[in-house]
């Protein structure tokens, strides 16, 4: 018997699993894949928390500011590279435009515009989906008064490949920068840049090297070797496009954090059925057993708590059939809030369908929207499965997932 079974191994599910394991609970994450973690840009958005807590039924209304701060601290605890500043902090998007971010790695945080420095954009040869001219132009526009230039950087191992016109994904380049050979190439390049600038004479300008596809975070000492040497110039990461190297290493790192604390992760597993019965004395039921399909076998798993973190529409936790004749939550068949109006005519508008999800009580237990009654006593719903929010227009995807995941783990 597990203390908790977390269904879904995306951000919310992993945070719940890690925190539960850290608290000494026997926890298992059952997941089909890594959810949308591979789309993770490296930045957690919290949005305008105080304003969103005023929005009726928004997931933030389930939590007090202490719970939100706890989640945020937890991210910093497990990822020490993440910083929260008093001031608002900004990072480069992969296009070289500037975006705000609430929680991001310190090596992604942009310097102060007033400092009047110089950016040197290192462009890995053949990097896929990266447009140096656009990035340079955008950086120069965003940082008036700064010098911006671009320099190619080439890795011997890929030279023959890129000469043929083949591109290299940022996932592959990130792996190179994390290898010994890659580090050497990078260190040499940066030293060369530094020397050039020293030869050119004394300039009061601060020089910042910018390298897309660089991921300096998510090292766990037991498995991977972090950067040993510091570079002679500061090196700035850019937030990632998809498929995201930040997402890739972050997903791996989260999995390791779960298992390091004694939790277990079952990947490639799909919940087929469940068993549960009425709880005595109240109407809500208790889910006792999940039947899971994994590696061609069916397994029966028993848990005291079930945490549902299957990622909503994008993650695949909510399935919408043709003509919307069927709209289903895929694991427990929970009742869903479904908005009356489905979409807006403008693509970039707040879309009503984004509000779809499970309504819960303050303990994130699923409610029947019609009766307002809790339907499962020992189920907690977290992350994108919650109703009444839109991570993209409200910019609070990371915030809701981390906060609800952490809070659920506290309930186990």
């Amino acid at each position, binding site marked *: 018997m597990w203390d908790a079974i977390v269904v879904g191994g995306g951000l919310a599910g992993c945070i719940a699993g890690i925190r539960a394991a850290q608290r000494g609970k026997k926890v298992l994450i059952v997941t089909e894949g890594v959810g*949308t973690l591979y*789309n993770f*840009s490296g930045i957690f*958005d919290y949005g305008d928390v105080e304003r969103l807590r005023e929005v009726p039924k928004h997931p933030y209304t389930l939590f007090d500011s202490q719970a939100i701060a706890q989640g945020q601290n937890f991210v910093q605890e497990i990822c020490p590279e993440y910083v929260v500043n008093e001031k608002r902090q900004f990072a480069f*998007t*992969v*296009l070289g*435009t500037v*975006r705000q971010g609430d929680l991001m790695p310190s090596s992604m945080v942009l310097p102060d515009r007033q400092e009047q420095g110089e950016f040197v954009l290192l462009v890995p040869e*053949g990097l*896929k*989906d990266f*447009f140096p*001219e*656009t990035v340079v*132009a*955008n950086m120069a*526009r965003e940082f008036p008064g700064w010098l911006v230039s671009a320099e190619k950087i080439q890795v011997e191992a890929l030279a023959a490949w*890129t*000469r*043929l*016109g083949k*591109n290299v994904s940022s996932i592959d380049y990130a792996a190179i920068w994390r290898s010994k050979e890659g580090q050497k190439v990078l260190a040499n390049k940066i030293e060369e840049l530094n020397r050039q600038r020293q030869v050119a004479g004394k300039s009061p300008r601060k020089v910042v090297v910018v390298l897309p596809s660089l991921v300096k975070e998510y090292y766990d000492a037991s498995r991977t070797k972090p950067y040993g040497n510091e570079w002679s110039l500061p090196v700035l990461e850019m*937030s*990632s*496009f*998809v498929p995201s190297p930040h997402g890739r290493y972050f997903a791996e790192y989260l999995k390791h954090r779960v298992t390091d604390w004694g939790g277990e992760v079952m990947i490639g597993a799909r919940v087929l059925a469940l068993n549960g019965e009425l709880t005595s004395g109240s109407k809500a039921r208790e889910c006792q057993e999940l039947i899971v399909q994994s590696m061609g076998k069916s397994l029966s798993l028993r848990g005291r708590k079930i945490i549902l973190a299957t990622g909503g*529409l*994008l993650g*695949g936790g909510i*399935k*919408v*059939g*043709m*003509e*919307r004749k069927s709209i289903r939550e895929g694991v427990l068949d929970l009742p869903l809030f479904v908005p009356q109006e*489905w*979409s*807006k*005519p*403008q*693509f*970039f*508008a*707040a*879309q009503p*369908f*984004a509000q779809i999800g499970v309504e819960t009580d303050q303990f994130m237990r699923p409610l029947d929207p019609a009766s307002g009654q809790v339907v499962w006593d020992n189920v907690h719903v977290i992350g994108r499965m919650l109703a009444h929010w839109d*991570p*993209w*227009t409200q*910019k609070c*995807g990371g915030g809701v997932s981390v906060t609800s995941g952490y809070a659920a783990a506290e309930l186990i």
Partner: protein
Amino acid sequence: MREIDTQVVVIGGGATGVGILRDLSMRGIPALLLEQGDLAHGTSSRFHGLLHSGGRYAVKDDKAAHECIEENKILKHIAAHCLEDTAGWFVYLKEDDPNYLQLWLKGCLQTGIPVKEIPLEEAFRLEPLLTRQATRVFEVPDATVDGFKLLWANLRSAQKYGGTYQTYCKVQSLWLENGHVSGVYAQDLSNGEMLQVHSEIVVNAAGPWSAEIAAMSGFDVHILKDKGSLLVFNKRLFNRVINRLRTPGDGDIFVPHETVTIFGTTSTEVELPDDHQVDEKDVSYLLDLGQNLVEELEQHRILRAFAGIRPLYESADASDHEGRGVSRNFALIDHEKLDGVRGLVSILGGKLTTYRLMAEKVSDWVAAKLDVPAVCRTAEEPLQNELATEVWDKARQLIGTAAADKMMERLNEQAGTVVEAIARQPLLGQFVCECEMVTQAEVLHALQDPAVHSLDDLRRQTRLGMGTCQGAYCTYRATPMLQEAFGGWERVAKEYRSLLSERWRGITPVLWGEQLRESELARALFMSVLDFKAEESEG
């Protein structure tokens, strides 16, 4: 006001207008085509892409059927690279009318449409998704046609013979003098400049807009604007065109195109020539009908819905005003006979399959008026020359066979410069669009065309944004090229917004299943990863 002098003005840049431009140009008659938007933005790109064998009209409209089979043969000869010779099946279901079957077989025989019966077992083997309710299957020489490719091929051929055109140029009024048309007044929508175009002849080939054009001078032409809605599935459900063998009706044609299948259509009379919005009711209606030909149609993913307006010709004495009842034939209206104005002709009705024939008839009329003895050669001269094998081989070497073949089909003779560019700079061979395998070099080439004013224009030339991602990835990937062509980040960001909004219009009527998921991903990419600002929705 800018003044232009030509011999013939052709109004309308659809298949018919461009076909006329080619025909006139080949006869050595100077002509200028004016189009209010981009080429092919109307009916010529908003149809199922079926090159009719005539089978669909074999019972009710033998004249249309006959024209179709003749033009079908001609187009397979002159425009092979714009077609896929898939063949088409007429599928007779258990409950269908046996009398219609007999009439149909007789009609095909009389109009010369070759029909071959396919044994059921073989039919199910060749097309596994075909409904098991099928009892008899007949093959006819239907094919699929890419309306964009066909149009651009006609245009390039016309240009070679001296034909000229201007897009985003809207005709404001006809210039009439003493019972004779002397040209048109038009406005260049890209800069607001007024144009006075002097010509001896004006051809009104504006499709669903042709009534509006005629009405500018108070002339009345009867056009029935008949909206047809269609759905695009994300894969080839069939390898052949699948028709239902019954009286032509709604939702009975599946047409495979490249990697997708188009399914349609409906028939609703509308007021506006650009009423292209599909509503969810049309979608439900079509899906219900589609179940007759594909069991469990709901299992398949729909990318988008779109609609086009059939400009059906209605003669003044037509008693039948229903869309499907009106002839798919076309009519040439000499306004001298009708309205006493010399030099003005309207070409009305018809269908894409017969665009060339319509162009021939118009050009014959024009040539007669101008006393030009040259005869029509559009049925004999292919739209493209034999492509140089060296170019083809080199393209295959550089970007692979599948991508090279698709590119050669799109670019024909112009492929040489693109292949050269990739050879010089191999990274230009990277794909911008992975569905349609469009390279950076090809996008750069298309952007050099002065007629490409927007990302949406680029889409029509390259098929960028037409695949599964509906623009989410490929528009992003076109960034550096757009920036170079259009100048400045603000403009590029604006282009992203307008293309994604244009695609969104077609996605919202089918917003469920995997396409809904894909849309959430697109929103995440643009609004979170790339940090585009949200728009306040109106109302």
